[in-house]
């Protein structure tokens, strides 16, 4: 018994080593009003914007409104316990998010607390949740591709590491599917992924996590979930928290990829908070700073400049001051953060308030259409409205050689297609053009969760662009493509390897490929 007591005393002494008691000085206020996850607090005269305040032990508040007599605070945690007259304490700290590798493979809430029941997470450090975006000097142009594994995107709207590409479309057009395919395609490519679910059904989040697990993609992914039943402030916070977790990798000189699914719901959550805080409503009742809310988030996606110089094992951590990396270790490759914000439109209207805001912030958009989806086109991308403003520079040469011809063919096809709807009497040349276009559209199609390496994409598109499909029925194009790739991998792996290494379609390579195509077509016909 004595030993037991001694042991306890020893443990307590160990824990208390270095404990110093100072008279506690704290700044406090009083809750004047509370409801809907928002508290109005009197006092707290010196409180900062975005400072964290505490309401008892487990409830935290984020200061969002500084008024003459009171402050407006968004509450996190067990908000039902907060009542009028409660004491509110300042902490003197702005909101921070725990970050680190330990979060990979985990599902967490925006405060970094685990939601997957797999025990506590040991964070490496903390970063300011609403951190400032890197400045001009810290950046360099986008130059490395981020392969989505989808032919229609990698060929027509290529994405570079550090780019912000919007995925926009009505409900059930496959927006999340594109994001998930991109995450799945990063396997083994050294890109850490963060998926932020904002205001989604918990069942949807569970399904997404399950998909990632089944495709072995959760091990390099963090899922930050603030689903529909989470308090509104949590939904507001989720993308900033996810971004802080992804920035940790970027500032270490690695590549990260983040999906915000979706920012329409984020805008709605922020509108709710702003109205409860009694901020004046603007267009569609959104607050005046809704543009800044999204622009400061998306600005944090960047391709950081390399840090030339001596030293730097690549394992050094940047020095942080208030959560900002102030000095990056030298001799480190500049990391990147690529962002896929998602916006849901109503009845295909991309000209409403939030869609136009986010379109103008991002470096391009992938526009998905219900009509195409219903016609069975997967992914249902409208290649006419979809653009990538910076990704072209990051495309590998072989793909840009093919994509140039593809783009021209498709634009002619679209023009003719619209014309052909009114006229059945077409000349032979136009008919041939339409037939080529139909086959191209087939080749651009791709099933879900089947991302493709870029060399396979080039080889697939090559046969379509070079009109080798003219004598293949439209319904047989997908089978042709599958067998063509299988043939190449089984019989002509040398060609695939050559393309993977050279990343270019040289005239010699083209002639070798032509020979291989005619050889394959003989087999296919037979």
């Amino acid at each position, binding site marked *: 018994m004595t030993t037991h007591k001694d042991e306890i005393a020893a443990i*307590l002494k160990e*824990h*208390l080593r270095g*404990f110093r*008691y100072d*008279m*506690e*000085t*704290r*700044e*406090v*206020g009083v809750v*004047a*009003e509370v409801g809907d996850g928002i508290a*109005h607090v*009197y*006092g*707290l*005269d010196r409180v900062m914007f975005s400072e964290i305040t505490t309401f008892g032990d487990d409830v935290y508040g984020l200061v969002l409104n500084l008024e003459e*007599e009171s402050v407006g605070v968004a509450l996190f945690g067990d908000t039902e316990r907060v*009542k*009028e*007259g409660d004491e509110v304490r300042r902490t003197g700290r702005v909101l921070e998010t725990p970050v680190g590798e330990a979060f990979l493979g985990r599902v967490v809430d925006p405060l970094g607390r685990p939601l997957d029941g797999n025990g*506590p997470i040991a964070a490496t450090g903390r970063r300011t949740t609403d951190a400032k975006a890197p400045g001009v000097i810290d950046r360099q142009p986008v130059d490395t591709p981020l392969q989505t594994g989808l032919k229609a995107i990698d060929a027509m709207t290529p994405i570079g590491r550090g780019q912000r590409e919007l995925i926009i479309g009505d409900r059930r057009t496959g927006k999340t599917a594109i994001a998930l395919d991109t995450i799945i395609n990063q396997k083994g490519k050294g890109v850490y992924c963060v998926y932020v679910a904002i205001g989604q059904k918990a069942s949807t989040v569970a399904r997404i996590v399950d998909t990632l697990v089944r495709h072995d993609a959760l091990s390099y992914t963090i899922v930050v979930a603030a689903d529909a039943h989470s308090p509104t402030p949590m939904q507001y916070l989720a993308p900033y928290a996810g971004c802080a977790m992804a920035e940790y990798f970027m500032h270490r000189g690695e590549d990260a990829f983040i999906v915000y699914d979706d920012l329409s719901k984020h805008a709605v959550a922020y509108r709710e908070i702003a109205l409860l805080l009694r901020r004046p409503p603007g267009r569609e009742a959104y607050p005046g700073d809704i543009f800044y809310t999204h622009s400061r988030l998306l600005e944090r996606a960047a391709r950081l400049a390399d840090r030339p110089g001596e030293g730097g094992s690549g394992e050094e951590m940047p020095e942080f001051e208030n959560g900002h990396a102030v000095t990056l270790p030298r001799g480190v490759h500049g990391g990147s953060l690529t962002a896929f914000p998602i916006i849901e439109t109503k009845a295909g209207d991309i000209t409403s308030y939030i869609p136009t805001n986010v379109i103008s912030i991002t470096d391009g958009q992938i526009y998905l259409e219900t009509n195409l989806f219903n016609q069975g086109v997967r992914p249902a991308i409208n290649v006419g409205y979809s653009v990538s403003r910076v990704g072209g520079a990051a495309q590998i040469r072989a793909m840009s050689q093919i994509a140039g011809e593809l783009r021209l063919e498709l634009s002619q096809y679209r023009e003719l297609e619209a014309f052909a709807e009114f006229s059945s009497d077409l000349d032979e040349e136009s008919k041939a053009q339409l037939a080529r276009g139909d086959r191209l559209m087939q080749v651009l199609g791709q099933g879900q969760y089947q991302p493709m390496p870029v060399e396979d994409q080039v080889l697939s598109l090559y046969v379509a662009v070079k009109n080798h499909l003219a004598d293949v029925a439209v319904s047989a194009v997908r089978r042709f493509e599958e067998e063509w790739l299988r043939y190449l991998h089984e019989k002509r792996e040398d060609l695939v390897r050559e393309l993977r290494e050279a990343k270019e379609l040289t005239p010699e390579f083209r002639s070798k490929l032509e020979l291989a195509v005619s050889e394959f077509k003989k087999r296919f016909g037979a």
Partner: protein
Amino acid sequence: MRSRDVARKIAEDLYALAAAEKTTDALERELRQIAASTDETSRSEGRAAQLVKTAFPDASDGFRHLMGLLVRDLVLGEFLSVRAEAEGIARVRVVTAQPLSGDERKHLTEKLEHALKVRVKLEENVDPAVLAGARIEIEGRTLDGTLKARLDQLHRTLGQSGEA
């Protein structure tokens, strides 16, 4: 409008009237009498409304609201703060486990007046839960030198090292 904002307006008007008639002390005494007649439990919004409804079943909403503010001590609180502001006095709330002795009171007042460079009016509260020491609350700042705060801090330190 929030209850406290209404109470503030009433307190400002009451103070202006009382100051003109030089009856601020009497008014403060009367407001304190109302406060003394209610206990802690009746100061919650719902409970106060219920009490007023029972006492004045036929009164108008406005009157009931006013009585509610009085029962909840909001008018007294705002009156004291308006008066302190107008008279250049700092209101300092001191919470101790035992009542302060005359010497302690004098010593504390002098120290606070020296530190704050204004006249200080002590409002003493006895709360056995603080165990020992004193907690001093000055306009949104709390200086906590109680044994309870010390134990709470110890508890937090042990909790954190336990988690780690």
